[in-house]
């Protein structure tokens, strides 16, 4: 019997997020012949996101557009999703493992009385069965997990599943679903944007992280300059957060975020086991530290023993030269 797979395509300020295409990529890995891939876009200003998705070969794009969906409110978004689920009757619902996806997926799973596999980093089919790989202990171990029954709810970690590519000549049928306007028990009173225009840490291809070695909040300045130049994001170790140099939202590690960028540059980070758990799956790791014995050098592809305040600005200069040429 053919399955229906519903992909939640996350948008931010009306623009499609990269993770939405990766979630669609995950749906393609799950789908077999004859299965139907459908997309759900919800928000208050989604025309651009919907038209961007049109070329990705989905059968149907469900849209739910309403002022209640301007800011993320779990109750409002759940109402929208349940309206679509009622229509699509999916066998699997997929989200990005983002702030929104992490929040919505368990609600959907509970409402469908379904299992959920979270934070998936790889999907394979082994003897006809779809097998999901996910980290345990923030990447100190990995498990493969399978569903025992349906429906399935899955969240996929950004930056791990290849994004779906547009298919020439493809176009989807677009179905507008009415927002059921429930009475809401929670109200979003304010959203303070601290990250406008910045690359999200979990999606960044390049992460420049600072530890205690940055010495102060101002000490992040050279890291930010390099991140801006490379279109990357700045992260931090627990040490830097605890010392008050930066917000906990930047923390990478077993408590904090797990990142898997193409390039990870650890500046003034000694490399405690908790921090290594959060970044050791990065493709190329670079460590800059004054202490040649720092454990971070044991996992780094390239190590530089030296002062980050000397090295990082020079690296910025070198990258600038390369990017110009």
């Amino acid at each position, binding site marked *: 019997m053919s399955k229906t797979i519903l992909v939640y395509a996350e948008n931010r300020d009306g623009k499609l997020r990269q993770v939405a295409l990766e979630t669609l990529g995950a749906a393609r890995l799950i789908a077999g012949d004859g299965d139907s891939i459908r997309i759900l876009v919800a928000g208050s200003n989604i025309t651009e996101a919907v038209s961007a998705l049109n070329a990705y070969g989905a059968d149907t794009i469900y849209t739910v557009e309403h002022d209640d969906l301007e800011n*993320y409110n779990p*109750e409002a978004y759940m109402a929208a999703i349940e309206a679509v689920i009622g229509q699509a009757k999916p066998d699997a619902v997929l989200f990005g493992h983002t702030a929104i996806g992490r929040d919505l997926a368990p609600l959907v799973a*509970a409402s469908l009385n379904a299992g959920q596999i979270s934070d998936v980093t790889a999907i394979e089919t082994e003897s006809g069965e779809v097998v999901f790989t996910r980290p345990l202990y923030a990447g100190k171990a990995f498990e493969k997990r399978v569903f*025992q029954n349906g429906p399935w709810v899955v969240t996929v970690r950004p930056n791990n599943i290849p994004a779906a590519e547009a298919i020439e000549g493809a176009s989807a049928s677009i179905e507008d679903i009415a927002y059921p306007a429930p009475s809401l028990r929670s109200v979003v009173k304010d959203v303070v944007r601290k990250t406008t225009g910045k690359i999200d840490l979990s999606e960044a291809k390049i992460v420049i992280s600072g530890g205690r070695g940055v010495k102060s909040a101002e000490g992040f300045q050279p890291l930010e300059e390099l991140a801006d130049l490379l279109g990357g994001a700045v992260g931090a170790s627990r040490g830097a957060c605890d010392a008050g140099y930066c917000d906990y939202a930047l923390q990478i590690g077993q408590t904090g975020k797990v990142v898997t960028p193409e390039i990870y540059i650890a500046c003034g980070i000694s490399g405690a086991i908790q921090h290594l758990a959060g970044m050791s799956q990065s493709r190329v790791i670079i460590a800059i530290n004054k202490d040649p014995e720092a454990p971070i050098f044991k996992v780094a592809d390239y190590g530089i023993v030296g002062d980050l305040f000397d090295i990082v600005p020079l*690296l910025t200069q070198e990258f600038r030269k390369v990017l110009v040429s």
Partner: protein
Amino acid sequence: MKIVVLLKQTFDTEEKITIENGSIAEDGVKFVINPYDEYAVEEAVKLRDDHGGSVTLLSVGPDRTAETLRTALAMGADDAVLISDERIPDDEYAVSKVLHAYLSKESPDLILGGNFSVDRGSGQVAIRLASLLGISHAGSITKLTLNGTTAEVHRDAEGDLEVLEVQLPAIFTAQQGLNEPRYPSLPGIMKAKKKPFQTLTLDDLGLSEADIQPATKQSELSLPPERSAGRILKGEPAEVAHELVSLLRTQSKVI
């Protein structure tokens, strides 16, 4: 004000993970309160001190979890409930059903838990419970203020800050920055030994194995491929910076 804290016992984050006979070895491992749940315990105790009421700790786990619950009692919680039964599978679908069976009879005003557990890291159970109990929730909060029958919370959304007003009863999950968890004091530890501590099984909750059949199952467990130390680049800072950027282009091919 009746407050329940969902608490999980986890490996200390400093532990190295090893696999023996297809499962994670637990010999000699130090177990702690899941770090995010520790913020939840602290917040609950503070709210109880300010607004009156009681703080009940609630956990699903093996018998060794009792030790961790005693630590949280020593932080100031009033009583603890441990649901311990070998028939409970390691699956969030099942665990949330078990917790729901207990909580549906308790009707707390406020449920607090951690943002996620640092072992399985799936972040499902508390939010599933909100749905099962039919109450509101906000995940990943960094500030909580009670105003009668509502709570104002600050929520961390990938670095942005969302301010929500939520009707009680509700479930909130704690993110770093919510508070500084206290250390249990010696008098606290002494008192904790005498606090009410209930251990329940599936039978006590009126659940059978059939009610909590796992929806997902682990099929394989492995350690990540070990990373080995790479090259230390030596020389003057300017030379080293130049060499690194060229290696990233020619050898690693990442730029």
